[in-house]
């Protein structure tokens, strides 16, 4: 109970910090912090969507970056056509159009690859989801028109208009940040509801003991597939944001190491908590930033740290904090 209150308090504090710090920093002229925090929020959305699979359903999908890439190209390609001409059907700066494209492409890709991957278990599942994301990687590399290896720059951010009036001018960095922030809250809320729903309980039960779920008359396959599609769509959404954030899309976003980083964020933050991925992404982005300023060999200490958390801090950072807290409170 105490650890739960501590947990809620900590989460509220973190959310508040994320809301205030970038603006305070900008006020003092350090505008790049807004940039770092925007990236952090977008990655949190992607990591949270993966945690629905990894933490709730126990499905170690190793290809989640593919959806970020697909979502990003759903912005990059229409913007490219709008700027340079070529395909009038896809072309457009319209953000709603980008979202529609991203959601439908990601849902379709998740449905097809999930239907196949979810027939496998364990290491096979990890490998096959990774293989599918590599397919997307090589597909994007082969698209010469869209820059191949080098990717595409996105000249203008998506335009969110209603009745020809721009309702959200996301070229304005702080508006864009607030949009990402609100979307993160929304995603966390949706994931929390789903986790505690009838549906979420099936996923949870099947993670613990699939044999028994089947022996009680439920085939987890359809539920897992639905979760797989949902997680893919949310990650696609983060891809739309990422393309807008970076003014750039490239196959590099889909590299398997990116999928691995998302997993690390979840494990780093702690798999038992809704806010684990957010905490993990925060630490990940900040560590990356500070370590890379300190030494160009930052990957080494970074890797060691991750290893340490995985080996010794079961339950990730949330686990470490709540455990210590409990230790302090109980005589």
């Amino acid at each position, binding site marked *: 109970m105490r650890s739960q209150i501590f947990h809620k308090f900590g989460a509220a504090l973190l959310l508040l910090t994320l809301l205030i710090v970038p603006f305070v920093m900008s006020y003092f002229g350090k505008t790049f912090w807004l940039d770092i925090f925007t990236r952090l929020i977008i990655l949190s959305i992607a990591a949270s969507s993966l945690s629905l699979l990894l933490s709730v359903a126990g499905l170690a999908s190793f290809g989640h970056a593919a959806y970020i890439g697909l979502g990003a190209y759903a912005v990059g390609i229409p913007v490219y056509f709008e700027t340079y001409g070529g395909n009038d059907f896809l072309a457009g700066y319209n953000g709603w159009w980008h979202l529609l494209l991203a959601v439908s492409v990601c849902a379709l890709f998740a449905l097809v690859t999930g239907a196949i991957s979810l027939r496998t278990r364990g290491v096979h599942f990890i490998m096959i989801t990774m293989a599918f994301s590599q397919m997307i990687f090589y597909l994007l590399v082969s698209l010469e028109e869209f820059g191949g290896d080098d990717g595409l720059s996105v000249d203008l951010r998506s335009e969110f208009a209603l009745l020809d009036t721009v309702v959200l001018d996301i070229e304005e960095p702080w508006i864009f940040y607030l949009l990402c922030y609100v979307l993160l809250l929304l995603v966390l809320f949706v994931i929390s509801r789903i986790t505690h729903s009838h*549906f979420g309980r099936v996923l949870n*039960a099947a993670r613990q*003991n699939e044999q028994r779920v089947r022996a009680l*008359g439920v085939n987890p396959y359809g539920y897992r597939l639905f979760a797989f599609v949902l997680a893919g769509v949310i990650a696609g959404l983060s891809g739309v944001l990422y393309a807008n954030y970076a003014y750039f899309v490239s196959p590099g976003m889909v590299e398997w190491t990116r999928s691995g980083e998302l997993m690390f964020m979840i494990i780093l933050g702690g798999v038992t908590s809704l806010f684990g991925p957010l905490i993990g992404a925060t630490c990940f982005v900040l560590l990356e930033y500070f370590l890379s300023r300190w030494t160009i060999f930052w990957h080494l200490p970074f890797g060691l740290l991750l290893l340490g958390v995985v080996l010794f801090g079961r339950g990730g950072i949330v686990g470490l904090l709540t455990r210590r807290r409990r230790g302090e409170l109980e005589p």
Partner: protein
Amino acid sequence: MSVLQTNNLTKRFGGVVATDAVSLSLEQGKVHALIGPNGAGKTTFIAQLAGQLMPDAGQILLNAKDITKLSEPERVRAGLTRTFQISSLFSDFSVLENVAFSVQARTGHSYRFWSKVASNARLNATAADLLELLGLSEKSQEKAAALSHGEQRQLEIAMALATEPKVLMLDEPMAGMGSEETQRLIELLGKLKSETTLLLVEHDMDAVFALADDLSVLVNGALIASGPAAEVRTHPEVISAYLDSGT
């Protein structure tokens, strides 16, 4: 009337014939005990009826309908449920949640994404009734993993009952229970049999003779006797085969 029937059911594991052309019939509303020494193939037989293992040959009929090709969940929804010899629980769930999920599994699909399932009064009430029946009410908020071995056996049965089976297959339900728990379970199973046909695999002979209407004996995968309990228990081959193996 025969509710569940097998015709020449056969299963091999490499050279081992774990189920050797077994033809067995469960009568509506009766307790059918299946006994046999360790490694006789009792669990393997149940696993084929439940659909976890596919037989190499033979047929399974539920209410005269061939279910040999049905998947495991489909069979449960058709009214055929099993329990496990080694308790198969959801260890992170509370005791109540274990049963509430089992009730949920019976009551239609779970594509419901918004309402909080933990506070679903209907699921919880049904689950609480079942826990009461198995004498686990006081433990309902504990994690399943924290239960004693005997309590886990009770929970195992509560979960199976939650599916409201027409035929319930119990794989050594009493194993590891105290004598008091065993007594209560014998009483409970006795009451159940008016609605539920039971296949009881059990080494506890007192329980078997207290409950069984019919009795089958499995040795090396093959049935050596099957019929009314009173007759089979006096069968000389049964006495020698069964007692010789030291069970």
